[in-house]
């Protein structure tokens, strides 16, 4: 099969499915729609795998715009291929908007990620939504929106130009909005979907501004042209030379403003501080869609965006990359600390997602073009994107199973679930080990590379922060794990007439698939063969000190969690009372406990977490609410202006004329 004849279907099929399912929502039962949707997406997934496989391992060529044959690989270097590129809109003579299909290592990788996660979620949702029983009717709608989302996400990663990306970017936002608000009878879901939409739209405004500035000066939207020859075109358009930063605006180099604005758009989707506020609330949506959108695919769009424009960032605006890595590091730590204090299991995962995405951002932020060491961050980031998508999707789907049984999101309602749900237990364990960075599991490799990249490029402070975060990650994930599966069994389970149990095959199969991917990651062909900044083989340096420290920190975190949460105990409370005596008596052990207790529990929980949560809740949320409130208030206060009195209308009219005349003349 020819790639050119397959490629359009990857985009068309989900879109046609969306239209078909949307139009026939009332004709079919929910199950039928689900089956149709899943089958169709299965085909799409096969196509995606085929295309990605051919790209990475096969050999094929397409004709480019000038009629030359372009191969997917010349020697060891993977080429960027524009499979097709339809002219959509001629803006000016030079500036054209295309809609097309762009293949390069990262988009091929994203094809695999999206196909896998989305297919699994399609299958999983069948079990999840169906057994939920009362929702049969909305299922067609649900599957229609899933198709829309898949379409939009595929379009986003395959975009040949930044404008196409922006359009799909918004479409992704719309489908996310629709999925978060799926349970529309829950007020929390409704406000969450609005919040998500408005916050991301706010960020997207910057994205659009960035696009406009960039394209105004470069006269192109195409990634090919922007990135070509070490972003030479961008450098020329902004007249950046070695000595000068080019055109400035308000004292800042314009390129910095443009690229930073574009990054802000990415920060909105990827929930970087301070745009992260929508993601925890977005957990109101159905759990499978959270797994797909808010863990694996949509939220990494920001990372993907930066990676896509990486040459531009690296050559034209390295200072923005610096900013990205500091923002990322702060977000990672910040989210990890908050995650420690959460009791809602999906929220813990949400904050952990924010934190992990921040890892990817940091890795991109520390990377530069140059040599293997400096380019390491790029590969590490993409690797982490891949591994994280798999294990985080799995964790979310596990959560879905658990919530399904327990019918609550609260940790306190859980405990001792191990014997009831063995498959979920093992999958969740694998996920936690992966995210904690324990060897053999996928997260270990990607996280290790990120930390190495930080250290090797001289970002020592960031390295320390990220290592600390790694420890915290291990701790809160295992806190979650022990709390759910060990700790004290909820007495209700034994007496309840439907005991918690593993779910049907539709729900366990995806878990197992992801678990296999997470464990077997090490057997996958190395990322350093293709997915690198230079798109060719790269030596992956392994710094055993870094790896060792990260393992040690992770184990420490797990140990603390084990100690405190494996079984129900009074330790956390008792230590408080016995503290002075105990400290002196068994110094070594108690000292750890004391530090842990004193700092972690009372200080971190009590002071930092609370204050950060307060800041988050009152200042950032508050600011958004204030804006809404002011608008509402102004709206109400001014209603007297529209009094219905025709004479007053004329009065305003004539006053308007007089005021304008006065202002214009003086």
């Amino acid at each position, binding site marked *: 099969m020819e790639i050119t004849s397959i490629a359009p279907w990857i985009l068309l099929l989900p879109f046609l499915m969306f239209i078909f399912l949307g139009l026939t929502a009332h004709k079919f039962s929910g199950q039928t729609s689900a089956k149709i949707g899943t089958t169709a997406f299965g085909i799409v997934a096969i196509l995606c795998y085929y295309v990605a496989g051919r790209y990475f391992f096969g050999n094929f060529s397409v004709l480019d715009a000038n009629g030359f044959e372009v191969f997917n690989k010349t020697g060891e270097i993977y080429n960027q291929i524009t499979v097709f590129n339809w002219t959509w809109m001629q803006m000016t003579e030079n500036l054209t908007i295309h809609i097309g299909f762009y293949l390069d290592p990262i988009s091929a990788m994203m094809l695999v990620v999206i196909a896998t996660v989305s297919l699994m979620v399609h299958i999983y949702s069948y079990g999840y939504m169906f057994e939920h029983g009362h929702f049969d009717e909305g299922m067609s709608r649900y599957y229609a929106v899933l198709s829309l989302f898949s379409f939009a996400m595929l379009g986003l990663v395959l975009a040949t130009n930044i404008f196409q990306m922006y359009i799909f970017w918004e479409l992704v936002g719309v489908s996310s909005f629709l999925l978060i608000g799926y349970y529309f009878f829950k007020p929390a879901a409704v406000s969450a979907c609005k919040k998500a939409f408005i916050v991301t739209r706010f960020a997207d405004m910057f994205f659009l501004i960035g696009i406009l500035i960039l394209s105004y000066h470069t006269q192109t939207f195409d990634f090919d042209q922007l990135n070509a020859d070490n972003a030479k075109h961008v450098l020329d358009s902004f007249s950046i030379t070695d000595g000068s930063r080019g055109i400035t605006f308000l004292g800042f180099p314009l390129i910095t403003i443009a690229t930073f604005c574009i990054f802000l758009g990415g920060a909105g989707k990827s929930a970087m501080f301070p745009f992260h506020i929508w993601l925890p609330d977005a957990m109101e949506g159905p759990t499978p869609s959270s797994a797909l959108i808010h863990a694996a695919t949509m939220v990494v769009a920001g990372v993907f965006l930066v990676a896509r424009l990486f040459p531009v960032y690296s050559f034209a605006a390295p200072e923005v990359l610096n900013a990205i890595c500091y923002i990322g590091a702060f977000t990672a730590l910040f989210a990890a600390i908050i995650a420690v204090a959460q009791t809602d299991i999906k929220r813990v995962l949400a904050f952990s997602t924010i934190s992990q995405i921040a890892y990817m951002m940091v890795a991109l932020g520390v990377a530069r073009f140059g040599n293997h060491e400096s380019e390491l961050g790029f590969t590490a980031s993409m690797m982490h994107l891949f591994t994280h998508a798999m294990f985080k999707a799995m964790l979310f789907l596990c959560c879905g199973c658990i919530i399904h049984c327990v019918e609550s999101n609260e940790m306190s309602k859980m405990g001792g679930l191990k014997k009831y749900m063995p498959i979920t237990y093992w999958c969740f364990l694998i996920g936690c080990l992966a995210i904690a960075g324990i060897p053999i599991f996928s997260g270990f490799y990607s996280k290790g590379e990120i930390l190495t990249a930080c250290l090797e490029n001289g970002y020592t402070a960031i390295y320390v922060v990220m290592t600390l975060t790694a420890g915290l990650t291990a701790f809160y994930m295992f806190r979650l794990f022990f709390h759910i599966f060990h700790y004290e069994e909820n007495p209700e389970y034994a007496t309840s007439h439907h005991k918690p149990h593993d779910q049907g095959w539709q729900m366990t199969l995806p878990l197992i698939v992801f678990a296999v991917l997470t464990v077997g990651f090490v057997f996958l062909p190395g990322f350093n063969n293709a997915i690198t900044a230079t798109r060719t083989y790269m030596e992956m340096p392994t710094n055993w000190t870094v790896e060792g420290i990260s393992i040690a920190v992770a184990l420490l975190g797990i140990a603390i969690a084990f100690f405190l949460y494996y079984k129900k105990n009074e330790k956390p409370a008792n230590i408080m009372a016995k503290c002075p005596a105990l400290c002196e008596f068994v110094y070594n052990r108690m000292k750890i406990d004391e530090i842990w207790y004193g700092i972690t529990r009372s200080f971190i929980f009590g002071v930092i977490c609370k204050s950060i949560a307060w800041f988050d809740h009152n200042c950032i949320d508050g600011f958004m609410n204030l804006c809404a409130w002011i608008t509402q208030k102004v709206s109400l206060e001014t209603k007297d202006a529209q009094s219905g009195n025709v004479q007053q209308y004329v009065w305003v*009219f004539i006053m308007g004329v007089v005021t*304008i005349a006065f202002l214009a003349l003086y």
Partner: protein
Amino acid sequence: MDYSQFLLMKPEISLALTLIVLLIADLFMGEKSKQYFQPLALVLFAAHTAINFCDCCGGSCMAGQSEAFSGMYITSNIHVFVKNMLNVGTLLVFLFSFEWNKKENKEHIAEFYLLMMATLFGMYLMISCGDFLLFYIGLETASIPMATLVALNKKRNESAEAAAKYILTAGFSSSVMLFGISLIYGSCGGSLYFCDVVKNFTAEPFQILAMIFFMAGVAFKISLVPFHLWTADTYQGAPTSVTAYLSVMSKGAAAFAFMVIMWKAFSNIDVKSTFVSWTNILWWIIVITITVGNIFAIRQKNLKRFLAFSSISQAGYIMLGLMSGTAEGMGSMVYYILVYLFTNLGAFGIISNIEDKSGKVGMDDYNGLYETNPKMAVVMMLAMFSLAGIPPFAGFWSKFFIFASAAQAGEYLLVFLALANTIISLYYYLLVVKAMFINKSDTPIATFKSDKMSLIGITVCTVGFLFLGFISQIYEQIIAWSFGI
């Protein structure tokens, strides 16, 4: 006299003929044949639309602009295109009102059509004017029949009140405008042809005063703040199809004419301060208009009123096209009006359809609409998305182009403020979507089957605002036509 110049007036002449034929038909139709009046009017008007449309597209393209009656009447491709746009819009309104005319407006069907066409004729003159006098006459020809249309529903108090407010404020504003014109006459060399005025316009205080009086009168028509107060009341009280007509056609025509006049009569190339003076004024008016329109729209409960305020803020966006004064500015403005026409008429088509069937126009009445009339709800949602400017609907593209044109003129701050305002507007457009999809209602609007005419109209609108953005040729063609005007 050169009679060939009448040939330039093809759209006007064919409209006038349609109008007169219908008038005579109405005079001599008996009681029994009355029922055929409406189809006849529709067919005749459709023929008029089709003829002009073919004429516009079928190659009889003029190079540059042509004048008739020694500059009193100006026409060019873009003028003809705008007239065609208005034709299509009017035809859509006719389609929407078909059922309403049959049921509620039995006695005044003929008046409805005749007055609509008379207003349209006025708008034609307004668009093609090359002289303030013709502009004034066009404006009044458009607005006086409009007032009677607003009052058409004689049995409703609201209708009477809306009409009274409209005619009084319109009369006032047009007389203020005339006062301005009279001062222009005195200070700009005793001629009201745009080409003469602009030669003598040097932005002296006295002239600026005159210009402001004039701008106020036109701004009233486009309902820019602070001359907008009549809008909501009139829109609410008028019959829905008339509201649709007012909000789109009246506004679009006035905006286009406004643009032509500002750049033709008040922008002396030799004296830079002339256009600086009015672009500054317009700058503030745009910002205030968009903001005030948005703020007032938020708390509206009546959908017609809601759309009135939304149309005020949209008018602000339309005015952005004036800022640059280039062909792109004009093209993007015409394109904006075109997209706005389809989108807003789509929304109004649904509202009038629902009002016909259930008599409800409150936003709360729309709760749970998705459950009962999913197709209507979906189209309404798409229209709202398009109005809010969410890609990839046409509304996004029109906003994008008009922002780009304003940015080209260096109005970055203005574009930023307008962009920020789109976020507020998103909020209230989503309110409607929320009402239809998310809110539950104990007494939702019953499932109904809409009549064929409205369905055709709504389909055309939907296709329009869904796909206009994708067909780039239209925008390019508009731009091409706008050059040299």
